[in-house]
């Protein structure tokens, strides 16, 4: 286990003392103390949210997370999907929009699917679906012809998916491209030419350890010298 520390409320906030502190990933409660169980930078979001920003590459399935999976097998009524975790997840063929027993979805082994976990805990086999609770696809399903799939750390994926993501904004200024980001660290990119796709993929992989300034200088250099 890691360091134990306690919080000191800054003097400015005296009126609204939050009653509960929300511990995000990397923090664990142990009675009155808060223990750090992952190494990384402590981040804080007003009013009461704390979490550890860590550099982990191994994915552990969590309920409700949207991931990119690779179909590895078709057995009976379900597909076996590799999501990068310790176990393969199962995806029923009826969990696609407009799929019925007669109308099977067109999914082959080796395809990429963007789907959500409905069951993901340590006691059961994880299960995926490609529809939301209303039965609509909502962007999920099979995709991926013509793009490139690569793997990054989970921290970078979370930074990309954050609502005001600076990395995403910087990337948008470069050239148009399509991107699908899975919470399991897998990212799919497609652009007009293969060279541009490769550039975006390499830029994303190198964003991991850079500060914002270094990243912006790098993007500017690439944009200036781009094809």
């Amino acid at each position, binding site marked *: 286990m890691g360091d134990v520390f306690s919080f000191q409320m800054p003097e400015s906030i005296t009126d609204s003392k939050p009653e509960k502190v929300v511990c995000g990933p990397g923090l664990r409660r142990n009675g009155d103390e808060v223990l750090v169980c992952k190494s990384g930078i402590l981040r804080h979001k007003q009013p009461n949210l704390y979490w550890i920003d860590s550099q982990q590459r191994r994915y552990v399935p969590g309920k409700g997370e949207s991931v990119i999976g*690779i179909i590895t097998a078709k057995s009976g009524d379900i597909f076996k999907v590799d999501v990068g975790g310790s176990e393969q997840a199962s995806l029923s063929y009826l969990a696609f929009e407009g799929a019925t027993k007669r109308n099977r979805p067109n999914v082959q082994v*080796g395809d990429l699917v963007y789907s959500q976990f409905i069951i993901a805990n340590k006691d059961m086999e994880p299960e995926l679906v490609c529809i939301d609770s209303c039965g609509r696809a909502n962007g999920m399903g099979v995709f991926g012809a013509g793009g490139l799939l690569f793997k990054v750390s989970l921290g970078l994926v979370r930074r990309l998916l954050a609502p005001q993501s600076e990395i995403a904004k910087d990337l948008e200024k470069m050239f148009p491209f399509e991107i699908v980001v899975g919470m399991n660290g897998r990212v799919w990119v497609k652009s007009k030419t293969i060279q541009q796709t490769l550039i975006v993929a390499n830029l994303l992989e190198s964003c991991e350890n850079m500060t914002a300034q270094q990243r912006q200088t790098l993007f500017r250099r*690439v944009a200036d010298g781009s094809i």
Partner: protein
Amino acid sequence: MRDTPLSNCERDFLLKAIQEKKRLDGRQTYDYRSIKISFGTDYGCCFVDLGKTRIMAQVSCELITPKENRPNEGLIFFNIELSPMASPAFEMGRQSELLVKLNRQLERCLRNSKCIDTESLCVVSGEKVWQIRVDVHLLNHDGNLMDAASIAAIAALCHFRRPDVGIQGEEVTVYSTEERDPIPLSIYHMPICVSFSFFQQGTYLLVDPCEREERVMDGLLMIAMNKHREICSIQSSGGIMLLKDQVLRCSKIASVKVSEITELINKALENDKKARKTGGKFGFAESLPQERITALKTDVSHVEMSDVKEKANEIVQRAEVPPQTVPSPVLTAPGTGQVGEGLENSWGLKEEEEEEEEDETVELKMELEEGHEEKGRGNYLPKFCFPWVSETDSPGPRSVCAVFYGHSLQDSTE
């Protein structure tokens, strides 16, 4: 555990990119990844980094009785091991096809080419000869294991020193390293393997395939050569048909690459020799600060040391004096008393004190200081913990490692 399967879109993209002569990391068709060779503290220990592929070779020797049909020749034994840490597809103890193939190729490349003078390994003809054993361990698999294994093996053999032996009449004395300097093996030439991968039935060719390129390739051609342009072994796998001029072209490319790599190995050996002679730091531990958790580069950033001292003093001044624990009789119940340590738990008091001290520091600064104390010499700290931590400024020569840069996108950003 199973390896991540290759999706259809990745395969299509890779093949299309190869048709347009583009590689994933921005290299050209004939470019090698950056090769880094470093040696350990013992003689005969060598680490080779070929991009992200990492291999370690260790050479050792012992005296044994020779073979009956060759009484005055020493023996060389090669052994490659695929460690499970290299790839989730490798399992300990299982003899996979890849392992057998690599072992056979390394043996053919190094033993059949007679690069080592085995007769010089003889001590007493017919009775005692040296057996040189080369153990190659794969630490990380990112493609092109054969090349990296051959570079590691030959560099380790060149680096190795065996104990000196003195013969006086019938008596044979083996001197330890302290008594007499160990002597190097006599090596005639350095055979190095170069791998070529073929795609689309031999239409497209790539040198030094990385792991993803290896998965989509049709066939592999491996040429083992030395810098004198002598071919030591050729192996073609995958069952593709190659034309005569294709093979000739590959051998020409291989000769260029082999001379570059041989120069690299020689430079690394020289640097290591210099470092050992001047008493500078050498060995694997010294090359550690160069290692990064991720293979991508990060710039040097300096720790803001200007006000660390003041902070420490402030904290010390602000901290309260710990209360003196005076042993006094404790009356737990009427009629009973207790003096000294025992049932009464005095730990609770000390915990409150520590918490008070910690409260006075801001969280981030506290992390910085703790990290600073733990750092000690400041040699190695995980970069993701403290991105503002400085690179080490170890005084020892870093020239133990020699680096060879190919063309790549990452390099152009430095």
